[in-house]
């Protein structure tokens, strides 16, 4: 009886330990692999620290091998969010003043985007007017 209890106890301990170990194992990662992946960036960071004020464009202009030999992600300049991902110019172009108003409101009053929408509206309005007059003329003519 004692043996059975002992074996059961050991088994329970083993099972619970292995169950617990599963989640703990998830917190392990290959540090050396990550260090290798980020090694080029560590060198670049040291260079920037030793050359205060230097920028990426200056390094690219000087053909600095630290950046020219690296596959750089240049997406640090964000593009604005626009309503439904449609360019602001098109909103102004197709929806006129309503489109301009929508862009103004949606982009949190972004001057650049609202100006783009305004230009869309300004360029499309004469075209619509000409098309409207031309259409009316053709309608009356026939």
């Amino acid at each position: 009886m004692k043996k059975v209890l002992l074996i059961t106890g050991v088994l329970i301990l083993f099972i619970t330990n292995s169950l617990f170990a599963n989640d703990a194992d998830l917190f392990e990662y290959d540090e050396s692999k990550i260090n290798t992946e980020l090694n080029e960036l560590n060198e670049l960071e040291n260079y920037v620290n030793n050359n205060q004020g230097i920028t990426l464009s200056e390094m690219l202009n000087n053909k600095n091998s630290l950046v020219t030999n690296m596959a750089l992600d240049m997406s640090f300049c964000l593009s604005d969010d626009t309503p439904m991902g449609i360019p602001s110019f098109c909103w102004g172009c197709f929806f006129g003043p309503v489109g301009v108003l929508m862009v103004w409101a949606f982009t949190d009053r972004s001057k650049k985007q609202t100006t783009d929408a305004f230009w869309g509206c300004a360029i499309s309005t004469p075209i619509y007017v000409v098309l409207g007059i031309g259409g009316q003329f053709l309608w009356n003519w026939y």
Partner: protein
Amino acid sequence: MLIRITLIILITLFSNISFSQAFFRIKADFSIKAKGFNGKSQLTMGKVYYDKTIKKIVYKIKYPEKSDWVSVDTNMYHIVNNKVTSRKSLPAIVEFTIFHIALSGNLSNYGLDKSPFTISKVQQSKGMVITTWDPPQLYSKIYGRIIVSNKNKKLYGIIFFSPDGMILRKQFFKKYQNINGFSFPSEVLQISYNESKESYELSSFKNIIINDMNEDYIYDYYIKK
């Protein structure tokens, strides 16, 4: 004896209250080294400023190009020469950033105790206390569980899962610094997963200053729209 016990309780209580209220500003030099799924690398360096009463994260970037980034609510503004050049919506609000959570004294569970997530399991293994947080039933098809591990009572790692149980990303909080009683990790490593690919992001913080009373105009950055 009773008076002593009462005094000890009162001192502990007041010291806790004062500590939780004491930290409201953080400033640090930071660098973010990132390698994306596409194998492309990016380095961002500068200073970060955050005041938890103002709730604006201000990044004064010196590299790759001199500019400012200001995060307010769910918006991130890119500002060059005092002009907003772009705006982007962010998935998370500033209250769920490491700066706000650390200043609020909730870093040990990453502020999850203030969220609708609930604890479903607590376990101890390999020197860690591992807590599993489940999303509310209503959002279980949008959010997956979150596992948080603590080492020496400090946040060590967080693992975010998708609703179908896939690991989305892991975050590790390393090399804690103690600045006048304020504990903050010098390094935050994020590993993101996309099918069989991994991307890495290592954020480093140094020269951390707490409750800096200078440069008020940066903490409350005026965004000229």
